[in-house]
């Protein structure tokens, strides 16, 4: 019954906004200054992925927990709630 993260996210209901509610403020900080790149590990929705030497954001599956907002060691993520009604809608909760 093991479930991969991609499959877990398929269980959820999202109303996706084209515009990302998550932005990296300064990509150079991620590339050159950030040693730990904690976002790659702490995010429960695998939103942050390493592509080459840059970090990509897949905001569509964001569970809106906020962990990257305060967990980024350089506070380099501009984190907003998705627009009203957008983002995840829990079915059970």
């Amino acid at each position, binding site marked *: 019954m093991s479930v991969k*993260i991609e499959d877990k996210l398929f*269980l959820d209901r999202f109303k996706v906004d084209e515009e990302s509610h998550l932005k990296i403020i300064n990509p150079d900080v991620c590339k050159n200054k950030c040693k730990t790149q904690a976002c790659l590990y*702490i995010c429960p929705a695998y939103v942050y992925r390493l592509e080459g030497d840059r970090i990509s954001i897949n905001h569509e599956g964001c569970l809106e927990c906020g*962990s990257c*907002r305060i967990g980024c060691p350089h506070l380099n993520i501009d984190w907003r709630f998705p627009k*009203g009604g957008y983002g995840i809608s829990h*079915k059970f909760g």
Partner: protein
Amino acid sequence: MNESFDVAIVGAGPAGTSAACILAEAGIKTIVFERGEYPGAKNMSGGVLYGYNLAQILPDYIERGCPIERNIIESRIWYLSKDAGYSIGYRDNIFTKERKNNVFTVGRAKFDRWFAEQAKKKGALVVPGTVVIDLLKDSTGKVTGVVTNRKEGEIQAKVVLLADGVNSPLAAKTGFRADLNPEHVALAVKEVIELAPEVIEQRFGVSSTDGVTTEVLGEMTGGMDGVAIIYTNKGSISISVGANLAELAKSKMKPYDLLEAYKQHPMVAPLVAGGKPIEYTAHWLAEGGYKTIPQLAGDGYLIAGDSAMLFNALHREGSNLAMASGKMAAETIKAALRRNDFSKQSLSSYVTNMNNSFVLKDMKKYQNFPGFLYDTHQLFNELPQVAQFMAREMLTVNGINKKQKQKSIMDEIRKKLGLMNLARIAWRGWRSVK
């Protein structure tokens, strides 16, 4: 939307909706903003609620069709090593009769939605799909309303109740609560696993209306300060594991990997076998405790629930603290409206009442408990390992005399933990909860 209200509430969770019910019932013009598509759309908890606190808001919650999953008649505590574990539980028939619904499970998407409906029936205006992005303040700094993401979305209010939950960019922006450090929260991930009600009843030994909660500590958080649960719902089981966010960042373990490993544990796997995962969610637990509670009231505003970091980690209480604080905030607002004074001074009775209630008394009593867990890593690796060794030794019948076994257990404790160290952990643990 350029209207004026007596009270604007940010967040339609247990705290905000409790306040809205009481205020609306008193005929007070109340508006509640909810960023989700519907109240509950963004909310997640293990899933227990407390009948006593709900009845304080809605005495007739049963008649009103409260969506209860299962009435909890047994509470279990597990202490797990990687592939073994201890279990104690307490079941009491009083919870099927006189004290029925003392604790019950809910799905927050259903419950919060239903709860907000009750506030609407009492006359509150609930506006979903709307994010509060800032607070209005006058030249003296007094809060005078909210700014939403809607067009012309400024709403004037005599007083604002902040009940927008533990993850609050609004708090960070407006400074009504210092933004949280990663060590102040635990990140929990949860899977809801669908199973036939009869299967759940068989596996947990309960009737069709009753259920069991299991709180779990041990190695399943990979040596990190954390906790896990197994709660029974009507036709599903909630499985969740959470760990301190600062520790997660350090360990590089991924939350969903912890959850998968936990599901494979020999004590967990048989309970969820054959089930179908139907939802995966993530949320913070406001673990910082008493020391992270912000100033609860200021000029023109009050803070309640998770926004105020009201969470009792030891007793897994949170939704009741939210409801109780929402109620106390509403009572204070009622009195302030009579005086037409919304200064910090006028709203300070909320702080006094909170201090005198179980909410802050309990939070204060356990103020050192989160720090004890955070500082005592042995609780999440060496100690469960030693506990496993001990039980295995004593339960294995192999012709070795018990005195010899006792000696090898003591040797193992000395090797892994040290006797003085073990005594120190026990002493500090006791001091943190006494």
